[in-house]
Structure formats: structure tokens, C-alpha cells
């Protein structure tokens, strides 16, 4: 479903964040993206949501080249991807409910659907009672969970989560992982960039490791090897 061919990304200031990455991810896979800070994990996720374009190489998602895609098609691509951003990206002027609802509003969902789906997904991430609160009145972990809820709410066929447990305690992290595994079981592809070595080690899923922009490891049933 996802194919990268010789992808290189050099940012405007000359930093080479990815170099010559080639990989293929199939529908329904659960993939961990690991690597040290600054290795290029977030850059890779940004290429998939077309937030950034590669400097060289080809990115193909669901049979379509993201490079040749017309600007008008991009929103429709993004609607099918549930993104959890490393920096959350919540809309500060909207309540938690409205933030999550926005992902549905974008696809023109009815009011009824919105009022059914949003509370459900907020319960799933453990925030049933924060619906009316504005994001900057939330704790870091709560903001992160809102961001996750928003990514899940419109049943995307691909979930890209960039360090979704960075601000969560171990217990809540595990609850979330169970949620993602569950969704993955129902056929959704999940790509998760993470530093949580214990989670990676425990789940034994496919692991892609980046270091300095290079893909240095691609293991089925891999591990982080915590005490690196």
C-alpha cells in the first residue's frame, strides 16, 4: 500500500533528513518507526501526509504518486489518513469536542454522526469528561490523547502516529497501544514513530530503524533493544 523508492529529503536549510530510503508497507501492517532523536522519523511521516515533498525519489500511497498529485487532491488523501502529530496541533480556539469533531466536519458528516462518534472516541482515549475544555486548559498527556482521538474518529484506512505516547504514563500508554492494536486487527494500517522501547520490545511487530536519515534496519517481529 505504501511504497517509497530512493527517497531523499533535504530541507531548505541544507539538512539532509532522509537519504535514499526505499521501503514498502502492506495493507494491514503494524509498523514501528524507531531511531535516535533527529533520525528522520517525523520527516518520513510528513512525506506520507504530503506535508513535505521529497527532494528526490518517489512516494506512492494506495497506488497514487504523492509527487504528481494535484493540489486539489491532497485534502482527500489526508482525510483517509489519521495523523497524530508529535506537537499535537490542536486548534486553540476550539474545545476538545470541536477539535475532534472537526475531522468529521471536514468530510461533511451529519450532526447526528458527529454527536454519536465524538463522545465515543473521547471515551476510548479516557477523556469522556473533557469535551467542553479548551486545549490550553489540558495537561500535556490529555492534549496528546485528544490528538489521538481526532486521528481515530473518522475511521481512516491508515494511521500515522508520531510519538503518540511521549507524554503519557505507562498505564495510559498501554491502554492506547491496545486501542491501536485493536484498530489494526480490523484492517487499518498503523505506522507509529516511537521511543518507547518497552512497548516495541513487547509487541514484536515490524520495526523500521532510521539513523541519520538512513534506513538501517527492517525487521519483521523486531525489537527496540532497550539497553542500546
Amino acid at each position, binding site marked *: 500500500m505504501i511504497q517509497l523508492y530512493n527517497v531523499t529529503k533535504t530541507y531548505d536549510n541544507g539538512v539532509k533528513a532522509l537519504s535514499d530510503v526505499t521501503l514498502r508497507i502492506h495493507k494491514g501492517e503494524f509498523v514501528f518507526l524507531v531511531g535516535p532523536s533527529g533520525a528522520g522519523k517525523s520527516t518520513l511521516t510528513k512525506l506520507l*501526509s504530503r*506535508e513535505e515533498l521529497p527532494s528526490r525519489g518517489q512516494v506512492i500511497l494506495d497506488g497514487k504518486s504523492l509527487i504528481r498529485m494535484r493540489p*486539489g487532491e491532497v*485534502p*482527500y*488523501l*489526508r*482525510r*483517509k*489518513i489519521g*495523523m497524530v*502529530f508529535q506537537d499535537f*496541533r*490542536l*486548534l*486553540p*480556539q476550539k474545545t476538545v469536542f470541536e477539535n475532534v469533531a*472537526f*475531522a468529521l*466536519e*471536514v*468530510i*461533511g*458528516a*451529519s*450532526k447526528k454522526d458527529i454527536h454519536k462518534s465524538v463522545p465515543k472516541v473521547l471515551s476510548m482515549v479516557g477523556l469522556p469528561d473533557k469535551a467542553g475544555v479548551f486545549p490550553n486548559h489540558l495537561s500535556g498527556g490529555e492534549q496528546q490523547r485528544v490528538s489521538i482521538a*481526532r486521528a481515530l474518529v473518522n475511521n481512516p484506512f491508515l494511521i500515522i502516529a508520531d510519538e503518540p505516547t511521549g507524554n503519557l504514563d505507562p498505564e495510559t500508554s498501554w491502554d492506547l497501544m491496545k486501542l491501536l492494536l485493536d484498530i489494526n486487527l480490523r484492517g487499518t494500517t498503523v505506522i507509529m514513530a516511537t521511543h518507547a522501547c518497552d512497548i516495541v520490545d513487547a509487541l514484536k511487530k515490524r520495526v523500521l530503524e532510521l539513523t541519520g536519515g538512513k534506513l538501517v534496519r527492517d525487521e519483521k517481529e523486531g525489537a527496540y533493544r532497550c539497553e542500546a
Partner: protein
Amino acid sequence: MRLSTINYYFREAFQSVLRNSWLSVASIGVVAVSLLILGSSLLLVLNANSIAANLESSVEISLFLKEETSSDEIEALEKEIKAMPEVTEVKFVSKAQALEEMKKNFGDKQDILTGLEEKNPLPDALRIKTSVVDQVAPLAYQLESFDAVDQVRYGQGVVEKLLALSKWVRTAGLVTMVLLGIAAVFLIATTIRLSVFARRKEVGIMKMLGATNWFVRFPFLLEGMFLGLTGSLLAVVAVYYGYLSLIGSIELSLPFIQLISDRSLLVPLVESLLGLGLVIGVAGSMISLRKFLNT
């Protein structure tokens, strides 16, 4: 477009007005102030124009007729002149009437003129008004060639001055209007851009969640429309009532100055100020957003 989406647009726009209350007030204020200045100066220019036109229309050509002209000849001449397209009024003034007028002008020194009645030295005359002051000089030149005409006078000098002045007022007025219009649009566009700028991150986030450009734009557009319209409404109310009270106070203290007060002129002014507010609000948001939509 789905009903739920339209619903969303309106909800979104009005929530944004309320939640960004400070930005909203600032934008409304700037629109109001700019259009207030624009509207007032428009009225100023219109009035200056109308006063100039009034003055112009009071300029007339005096046609002094030869002594021997018969009243038939005069009548024929009067008709001929009346038929000219640029002439709006022709009036015959007999030598007796002219003397009468002169006496009036002399006031209580009119005894100087006693004795002139018997041998009135003044000629018969035709007084002619033209539609536009430009035509006074060429018309006068043309009239001089008529047989019965002895002499043509039209306050040379004064007419030229008046003409130059009123042309000046008109061009200066137009230039001022255009400059102020540009300034108003600039001020308002800047404010709207600043307020969109303060929320540029939101636009980026929306785009990342799969919102189309129009989906992001529409609420901003409605918001801009609302802010622009509210601002121009304030400006219109202020201009309108301010102008009415101005007319009242001028009527009291300067009864000899006639300000424009007919509805056929004020209504289009009000309408165009409102329209301008609307257009500026919409165009301002559209242009300001463009920069942040290319993500």
C-alpha cells in the same frame, strides 16, 4: 454543498467572531473609521462641487443691443438664441429696467442718477445663462457677430477665475477621493491580514486534517463579510446623522450656503459605503488567507 456543512460555516464564522472578540472589535473599528473618513470626504467633495456649480450657474452673458433695434428684431434674436443647445435661459431687460436696477445698486446714493431718466444712456439688453460655465466665453464670441448686437459682456476675469477654481475643486476632489479610497482599502486589508496572521497556525492545522481550501476559506469569508458590514454600518450611521446635524447647524448659522440634502444622492452614498464594507471584508479575508493556504 451539504446542509451540515453550510451549518458548520455559519456556526464557525460566528464562533470565531465571538471567541476572537478583540480581533473582531479591532477589525470593525478600523473598517468603521476608514469608511467614516472616506464617506465624510466624499460628502465634502460633493458639496464643494455643488456649491461651485451653483456659483457657475449664476454667471450670465449680457448682450447690449444697438439703439436702433426694433422690438420685432429683438424677439427674433431672443428666439434664435434660445434655440442654441448650450443656452438655458434668455431674458430681455429694457433700458428702463436696467436703470431701475442700477438705482437699486446705488442704494441711498441713487440721487447721483437723477436726471438720467429723461435721456437714459443705457441700452436694451438680453441676459443669457448657459448650462456649463465653460461655454460662456465661446458663446460670447459667437454672439458678438450678430447684427443687432452692440457689445457682449460677461464679467471676463471673474468667469475665468471661477472656472479655474471649480475645475480645481473637482480634480482635487477626485484625486482626494481616490487616494482616500486606496488608503481605506489598505488600512482595512492590513487589519484583516493581521488578524488572519494571528491565526495562521490554525489554517495550517485545518489543511493538515484534510480541509479543502474552500472549507477553510468560507468561514473566514463569512466572518470578513460580517465584520466589514458591521463596520460600514457604523460608519454609515455616523456619516448620515453627522451630516444631518451638520445641515441643520449650517442652515441656522450659514443660511446662504446650500448643502446637498436630497435622498437621491444620500441613498446611493449609503449604499455604496455598505457595499464597499462588504466587498472589502470579503476581499480582505480572501487575499489574506491566500498566503497561508498553500500548504
